[in-house]
């Protein structure tokens, strides 16, 4: 139910109007009677928690999906899209949160794909010179610096995003949809982007932007639509609202009391990483990294993705071989031990990609109980498995972690992301590890499940488990950690105590020489 408080001022022309959009998936109402009016030449933000329905709405606007009910108008004319091509034809361009770029092709090839300028003479051949010229022109006009002949695989995140923007501008987009554009950027790059967005609007383009970074949204938008649970809560003007109010609208209540930590006191070191250096085939690396995690301590690892966090996790697990350095667990040197042995010795891991690394998607849920826990004496009798025991353990995890499934025989793929994550967290905590590495433990998980997971992590720490949380969610790190270490370029560049940690300080540390 739309509850428009104030309509954006000044422009009379409406670039995009979505009316009564409803879309359901099996068991989920993604959008319920959503109405949004976007004025031409403005920046209009859509905010909401994970699961609020923002992405679905944008997919509908982009033609990737069709609504069950409702209508759309672009520039005053009613439209229906059967595919993204239709939306592109009408001037809508989307920049996805996870870039859709072909690594082994050049910037030029990626940009012109599907809209190639052709040479009139030789049949079927592309006019690359014309394309390069056009790209350069756009690049200069909107201050989006790129080299058309560079290969995508050689470009960093910021450059790739510029390529994505040029991609939509190349097609003559008048309405740009940006899905969480600052998610992977450093604080500096993010503010650059935001000013570029304002620049785009001054040229007459309309920008729709999805985010849950309320401060950015307030800083750059002309209007904000708040969504929650598939519905529009309100559409407001930034000048007339406070961030706190916005947050309340987003979440639906005062943000729940975050679990308070009994901080302070010294803790005996549990996991010591000394001078770790390692390189992965793809180029990612860690370089002389030192860190200690004490018993019962929660250490957060902050940093822009791609600065060595993945390599750090893999090195601790033993999947990535060290070039130099030592890993010591409770005094024992693990540096040359195999992964299976390290898990047996008490290291647990919540992997960052739950679908590929945390569960066996096409197998019954209970089988995933054994992942990483084959060494558990309850699960085995010599080389054989004790199926009944495994099933009992899986059932216990399901019950304790509030995983909502009708049975443990259902395949893991059938579960929602949140339930999969709850299962994984529950499985790891049930084993009572000495050290737990949690990589993005609540990514893509709804607020309720997130709070549950946070609570369980804190409880585990109270019991003496040393926890290392690698996360892109600064709020998560700040709520839970005793200390926050900031990674950049494969090293730890700063460590903050919980009391000293502020978003500003951490943010600026992250940008120090970050990739």
């Amino acid at each position: 139910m739309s509850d428009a408080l104030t309509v954006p001022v000044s422009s009379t022309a409406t670039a995009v109007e979505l009316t009564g959009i409803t879309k359901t998936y099996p068991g989920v109402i993604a959008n319920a009677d959503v109405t949004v009016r976007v004025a031409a030449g403005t920046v209009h933000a859509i905010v909401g928690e994970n699961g609020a329905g923002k992405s679905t709405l944008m997919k509908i606007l982009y033609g990737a999906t069709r609504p069950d009910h409702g209508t759309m108008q672009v520039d005053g004319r009613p439209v229906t899209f059967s595919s993204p091509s239709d939306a592109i034809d009408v001037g809508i361009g989307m920049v996805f949160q996870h870039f859709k770029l072909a690594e082994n092709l050049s910037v030029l090839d990626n940009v012109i794909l599907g809209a190639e300028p052709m040479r009139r003479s030789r049949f079927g051949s592309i006019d690359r010179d014309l394309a390069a010229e056009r790209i350069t022109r756009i690049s200069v006009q909107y201050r989006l610096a790129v080299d058309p002949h560079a290969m995508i695989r050689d470009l960093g995140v910021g450059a790739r995003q510029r390529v994505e923007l040029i991609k939509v501008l190349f097609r003559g987009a008048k309405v740009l949809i940006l899905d969480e554009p600052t998610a992977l950027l450093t604080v500096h790059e993010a503010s650059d982007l935001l000013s570029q967005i304002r620049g785009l609007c001054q040229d007459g383009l309309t920008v729709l932007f999805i985010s849950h970074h309320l401060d950015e949204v307030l800083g750059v938008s002309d209007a904000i639509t708040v969504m929650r649970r598939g519905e529009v809560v309100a559409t407001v003007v930034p000048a007339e609202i406070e961030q706190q109010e916005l947050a309340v609208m987003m979440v639906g209540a005062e943000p729940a009391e975050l679990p308070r930590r009994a901080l302070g006191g010294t803790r005996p070191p549990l996991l010591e990483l000394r001078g770790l250096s390692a390189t992965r085939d793809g180029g990612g690396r860690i370089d002389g990294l030192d860190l200690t995690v004490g018993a019962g301590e929660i250490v957060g690892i902050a940093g822009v993705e791609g600065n060595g966090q993945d390599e750090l996790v893999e090195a601790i697990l033993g999947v990535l071989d060290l070039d130099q350095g030592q890993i010591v667990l409770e005094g024992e040197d693990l540096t040359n031990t195999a992964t299976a042995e390290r898990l047996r010795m008490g290291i647990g891991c919540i992997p960052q990609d739950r679908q590929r690394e945390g569960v066996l998607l096409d197998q019954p849920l209970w089988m995933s109980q054994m992942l990483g826990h084959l060494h558990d004496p309850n699960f085995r009798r010599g080389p054989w498995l004790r199926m009944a025991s495994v099933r009992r353990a899986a059932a216990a995890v399901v019950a304790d972690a509030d995983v909502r499934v009708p049975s443990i025989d259902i395949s893991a793929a059938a579960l929602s992301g949140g339930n999969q994550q709850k299962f994984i967290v529950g499985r790891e905590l049930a084993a009572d590890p000495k050290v737990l590495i949690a990589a993005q433990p609540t990514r893509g998980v709804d607020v309720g499940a997130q709070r549950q997971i946070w609570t369980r992590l804190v409880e585990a720490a109270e019991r003496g488990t040393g926890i290392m949380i690698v996360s892109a969610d600064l709020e998560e790190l700040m709520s839970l950690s005793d200390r926050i270490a900031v990674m950049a370029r494969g090293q730890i560049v700063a460590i903050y105590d919980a009391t000293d940690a502020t978003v500003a300080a951490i943010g600026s540390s992250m940008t120090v020489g970050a990739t």
Partner: protein
Amino acid sequence: MSEGSPVEGFIKRVLSPARLGSMSLHAAAVALSLLFAVTVLGLILAAYGTRPSAVIDVVGEYALTGPGWVAIVNKSTTYFLAGLAAAVGFRMYLFNIGIDGQYRLGVFAAAVVGGALGLPMLLQIPLMILVACLVAGAYAAIAAYLRAERGVSEVISTIMLNAIATGVISYLLSPKRFGVLEDGSSNVQTALIPESGRLPAISIPGAGEVYGFTVIAVIIGILYWLVTERSRFGFELTATGSAPRAALLSGTNPRRMVMITLIASGALAGTVGLPELLGSTHRYGISFPSGLAWVGLSIAIVGRNHPVGVALGALLWAFLERCALPLDLLGVPKEVISVVQASVVLAVVAMYELVHQISERRERRRAAAFARPAAPQGSPA
């Protein structure tokens, strides 16, 4: 969800509604595939003007009799073993097309060793089995090593190795080396294996003799099931095939898995020629066909890598081939059977995919409905 006695638990698990539903879906898939294949056969027969009743008569006369069944069971033992060998690799998305070369090298080595020694049966036969498995496994190890350490696709490497094996065997089989040319025969074979190297057959009165090795094959099948479903190694195998990253992070060494799996597949392939060698021919010669790799792969696909499925698939394949000769007598070329077999595999493969998608969608719906319907679940919207 508490479990009572193990038997209760077993029954609950095997006969749970979900499991039964899944099994019946798969059975329906196979039935539909067979229907498709029979339709194809029917069309071809119609083109030849053969009446279906004539076919049924002839099939009944030749295939569905006592001796017919014995021949079918005997042939299916060979196919069953080939299917298991393929299935071992399939569980990890490894395609061991080298079963052909591996099995022939294995049975050749066993024949040579068996023909050269005259140990008592209790030693002779296990020795021959061992030799077959070792040689075949070692040959598979080449492809295994290339795949594990150099990333060479096992599809290409095993096919190359098959061709190389053919050359090596023909080299070794010449009369100057291990071959023997008996008077009156124009085919070179290995030396005849003495009595002690012949596995006694199971005599079925009025029907014929079933290979003794069939019993061993059943035991191998049971072992296969135990290892893949009930052992830690079996779990690691499943995990590596289903989610290689997850397996890696939980301590499974992928290279080790590839090596063990392909070598095991090879060792199993080594047994493929033994039913015939120990049971009827007693020497290696041209009667050992190539092309068994494809049969094994087909059967593994149809049987979904499960020993019971593979066994049923092997029986089906052997039955179809038994029907080839009578069809020939009716004027329909017996090669039509290969077309029928191909149709079965094609149809099965499509059907299984359909079944997979249906059951996945069903499960998702069930899971989503179970969770509180008011709150949209946490998947990124």
